[in-house]
């Protein structure tokens, strides 16, 4: 690994192996995330995409391999230390704190005093709903609002990298659109590593992709190359995922 690599890539995951209990979940995953881009992890259900994110963050620490964030090896560090280095994580299950209000959820994410005040305007421009619901407890929010709050929480400190897991899961189509817009404007501010099942959304957002299959990273490259390669899509992502061309064909019929 040469120096240029670490400079261009904010995150380099190098051949990590992760066990959960006795199960060998990740059997060699390598991902490179260039600065200022959106990179998407693709793969079938259970391929190991979420585990990859959790391994980066140290929630399920990798036993082998390296994770290099911003030029520093972070594998083996504890999760809260890794997060404090400037990695925001938006898990797939709308992981907000339901007993706390929207405001308290956001304030909780401050790493330094004034983090929230500094980014308040940006966050409320992105998700105007949250401003309206500011004092409401988390358990009063709808699913979509909770998802937005979970994303917004990751924006409170100035994170250098956001790990976002399935932001479109369970959202109504109109909210998916809103979430896409939000993520796109986020990418102007920070680097994003995305896990997304919705291939249409992923293909429109991301510049780069890495495909994970059976716990191994098998392909990576530019998104525009993948969208033209139906064969690869079917091989690794299954027939259930419709490409843009197929969708267009469906609409024509």
């Amino acid at each position, binding site marked *: 690994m040469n120096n240029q690599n670490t400079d261009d890539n904010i995150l380099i995951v190098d051949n990590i192996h992760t066990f959960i209990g006795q199960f060998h979940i990740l059997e060699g995953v390598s991902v490179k995330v260039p600065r200022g881009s959106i990179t998407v992890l693709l793969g079938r259900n259970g391929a190991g995409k979420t585990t990859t994110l959790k391994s980066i*963050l140290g*929630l399920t620490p990798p036993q082998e391999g390296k994770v290099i964030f911003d030029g520093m090896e972070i594998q083996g560090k*504890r*999760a*809260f*230390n890794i*997060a*404090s280095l400037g990695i*925001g*994580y938006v*898990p797939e299950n709308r*992981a907000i*704190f*339901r*007993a*706390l*209000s929207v405001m*308290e959820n956001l*304030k*909780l*994410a401050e*790493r330094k005093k004034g983090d929230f005040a500094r980014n308040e305007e940006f966050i409320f421009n992105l998700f105007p709903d949250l401003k*309206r*619901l500011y*004092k*409401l*407890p988390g358990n*009063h929010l709808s699913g979509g609002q909770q998802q937005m709050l979970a994303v917004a*929480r*990751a924006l409170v*400190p100035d994170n250098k990298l956001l790990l976002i897991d399935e932001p479109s899961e369970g959202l109504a189509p109109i909210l998916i659109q809103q979430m896409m817009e939000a993520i796109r404007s986020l990418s102007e501010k920070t680097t994003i590593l995305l896990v997304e099942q919705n291939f249409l959304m992923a293909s429109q957002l991301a510049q780069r992709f890495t495909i994970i299959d059976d716990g191994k990273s098998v392909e990576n490259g530019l998104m525009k190359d993948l969208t033209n390669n139906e064969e690869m899509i079917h091989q690794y992502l299954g027939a259930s995922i419709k490409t843009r061309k197929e969708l267009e064909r469906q609409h024509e019929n």
Partner: protein
Amino acid sequence: MTENINPKKNRFLTNFQDERIILVFLVLLIAFPFVMNLITGTGLNEGVTKFWQGQFIVFFIMAVFAMSYDLLMGYGGILSFGHAASFGGGAYTFALLMKHWAPNFMSNYRIMVGSINITEAIVLIFVFLAVLLISILIGLLFSATSVRLKGAYFAMLTLALGSALYILVKATDFHQWTGADEGLHGVPVPLWLNPTQNRLTIYFISLIFMFVCYMVMKRMVNSPTGRVIIANRENEDRMRMIGYNPVVYRTIAFVSSSIFAGLAGALYSIWNTSASPTMISAVMTINALIMTILGGIGTLIGPILGAAIMQTISQFFYTWFGARWPLVFGILFILIVMFLPYGIVGTWRLKRLDVKNGWKRITGMLSRKE
């Protein structure tokens, strides 16, 4: 969405009302001994007035103990069956030092400021610092065990730890120090603190103690640290994700709740001029648990109310039902848990809007008829 905003608004208002109610109660409780005195005509330190002062003192102290338990269970989400260790630990620390160390010290040394003898004050301050230290240590001990165990397993371990301390104070090997089964009796306290001769002093000290503890705990749970402790209760992994170390905040919850319990225990020891193994036994923890559940988990007013109810019930049920009163109380408790699962205060906060709307409907119907 707009109807969603209302509950929060109302909740904020009730938080405010809570404070007002507390202030009203404080005034009532300050006036209570004097009013009783006027009504009964006996002296302030005699008869019924004195008896009820005693009942209230126990209520104040138990309220702090129950609040400290709620701090741990309701806010921190940590179910400990060994919380009495802090309470009893405080009581025993106070009693042991006052009985075995203070008399010697006071007869050998004399600390004077000008012509005023402050030896006694210094001794009391030292003893309370020791109580504080022991409470912190017990809190740290319990939180250290919670690093590896969660949920029911952790609860079992706290039960075991609490029982270990219970066995320790009952051990005959230390009979000359702890009094083993009988406990420590006749703990010498300064005359102005003597519960039989100067009960009114203890009444006001424990009243202020409860009030101050309530205010401090209220401030604590509403502070950023308190919010982190609540968030910790919900999900520790989520805390790690956003860069918090859950162990640190669990320890804060343990230690602070242990300090309140320890101070309450020391005060209880002054009130009884004794420390007995019951104070450190699981029964004591269960009492706090019952008070907290009765009043409402996760509210600070709840445990106070629960303690008041417990104190009243144990007083009247004995005269009404004789020795079988726990049986009646048990049935009552089951009914409360079944029909008011969030406790009295918790259920009230949840249903208040319904009640308010119900009243509105009734008054609306009445006015329409006219």
